[in-house]
């Protein structure tokens, strides 16, 4: 597996790709906070925020629909919000008869449900865009600049660096299980659920030992190369004038979104 197999970064030569990662992180978070602040049914503001995302997509040269196509992942979670359809008092819109229960969807409930979905969907798109235009190591570096404790960012950097190694290890374990799980035609292979879970548990234990021993080797190798407790970077991350201008523009646009949502 390649070392950046998990990175969502998409190589392009665009303005957004070259923006300082700190600026991108802060703008993305401000945008998501702004979504959380918008009241239910603020359609103008939702539309404006979506336009913001679309324009950012175009500027990033990833294509208008890039984040839209990848934003479906949060939808299954909508299930937990489904109860607001019935529980909020309002004018009934339509009723469903299900077994012995009668569900009445109210207009206020519908408004709230759709608003939750839109807020979530806009926020997910911004998060997708953030990791699509920022390399993961740069992202971690930005978090460091934004005062996230060094212990945590170093752990995250290691996690990212060795994730693909351990994923290869998992694939090896899974392949070994497959190879030993043959069944004669017509008969079931393996035991019950508890037995299968125990096999999975043994695999997790095995993976733990391999990782543990690997971390020893990694540490020894790092010490051999002069590690004294912190990692260096050759990427200075200096704020350019364009970084400031973009921040100002983004703050202004997010402010307008809030205004549209409230007045």
């Amino acid at each position, binding site marked *: 597996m390649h070392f950046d197999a998990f990175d969502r970064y998409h190589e392009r030569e665009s303005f957004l790709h070259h923006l300082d990662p700190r600026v991108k992180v802060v703008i993305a978070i401000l945008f998501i906070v702004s979504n*959380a602040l918008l009241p*239910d049914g603020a359609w103008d503001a939702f539309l404006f925020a979506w336009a913001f995302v679309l324009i950012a997509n175009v500027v990033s040269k990833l294509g208008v629909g890039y984040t839209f196509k990848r934003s479906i992942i949060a939808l299954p979670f909508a299930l937990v919000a489904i109860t607001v359809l019935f529980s909020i008092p309002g004018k009934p819109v339509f009723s469903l008869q299900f077994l012995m229960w009668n569900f009445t969807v109210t207009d206020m409930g519908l408004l709230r449900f759709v608003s939750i979905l839109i807020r979530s969907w806009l926020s997910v798109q911004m998060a997708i865009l953030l990791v699509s235009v920022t390399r993961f190591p740069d992202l971690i570096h930005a978090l460091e600049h934004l005062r996230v404790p060094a212990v*945590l960012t170093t752990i995250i950097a290691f*996690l990212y660096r060795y994730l693909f190694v*351990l994923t290869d290890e998992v694939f090896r374990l899974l392949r070994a299980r497959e190879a030993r799980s043959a069944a004669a035609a017509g008969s079931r292979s393996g035991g019950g659920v508890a037995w299968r879970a125990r096999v999975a548990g043994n695999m*997790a234990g095995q993976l733990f030992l391999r990782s*543990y021993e690997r971390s020893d080797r990694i540490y020894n190798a790092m010490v051999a190369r002069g590690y004294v407790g912190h990692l260096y970077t050759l990427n200075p991350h200096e704020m350019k*004038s364009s970084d400031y201008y973009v921040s100002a523009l983004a703050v202004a646009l997010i402010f307008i979104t809030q205004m549209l949502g409230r007045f």
Partner: protein
Amino acid sequence: MLYSPIPMHIPDGFLSLIVSILCWGVTAGVVGLAISKTNKSLGEKQIPLMGVMAAFIFAAQMINFPVAGGTSGHLLGGALAAIVLGPWAGMLVMTAVIVVQALLFQDGGLLVMGANILNMGLATAAVGYGLYRSTFNQSRTVKLAAAGFAAWLSVMTGALLTALQLWLSGTSDLQIVIPAMLGVHALIGFGEALITVSALAFILQTRPDLLGEGSESARGSRIWVGVGGFIALAVVLFSPLASSDPDGLNRVAMDLGFIDTAQSGAGPLAGYTVPFLASASASKIAAGVIGVLVVGVIVILIGRGIKAGPQS
């Protein structure tokens, strides 16, 4: 990709701002404490170890086993991480895992990350380690049984916290979300318990030194027994209470200002006025001040841009 998420990662948009911020506050406090504790007790060697262990938890979540009807069970890992690495290191490892899941896979949001870390990383580690720690000098069977129960209860704790946050945000109905979340996760927790127990049994058999006396796992304070026991008791007692008296809880939430009486808005911060400020005029003044601040920020940023000179 084998990566399969657990239905507990809350995406952005499902929690109100105030609940998100409260959870971030708790999470930041506990993680800060964990960092200072690990800095004190661990050498520089521990950092690569914790990083690789975080990658281990991430990768171990990919080991799945078929349950029934095309569904599969797999590990969440909070209890296991805390048991093998000690409570504080386990919390840091789980925090890193959840951060990366949110950033790389959009599995869980950014604003609600505090809540996700609290539910799946901190609470699971505290419950898991606390219950396991109480059996320190017991036999292998007792230890494994405690670890299994701890793993099951850690998943239930996470599910209950998630349900409560969703309810406080006005996203879900209490009467439905608590039984639904706990019901689903009672089964998921069963898989978690089975995997955790057999992984521990495997480690005890092959490398008993990693879990024996003097190991990181055994060095956690006895206080954890109290913490874990307290959370466990709270979960066990609270769940039936929540399902039997939802009206009482709703009233408490209204009194605390989380849910307004008709539940018509999106929680306290989503109205047309700034919350905490009751009168309309005070709220208008506050809105004006915020506007001035925003304009000030924009001006400062443009000023800095000019000062930074032409693009290098």
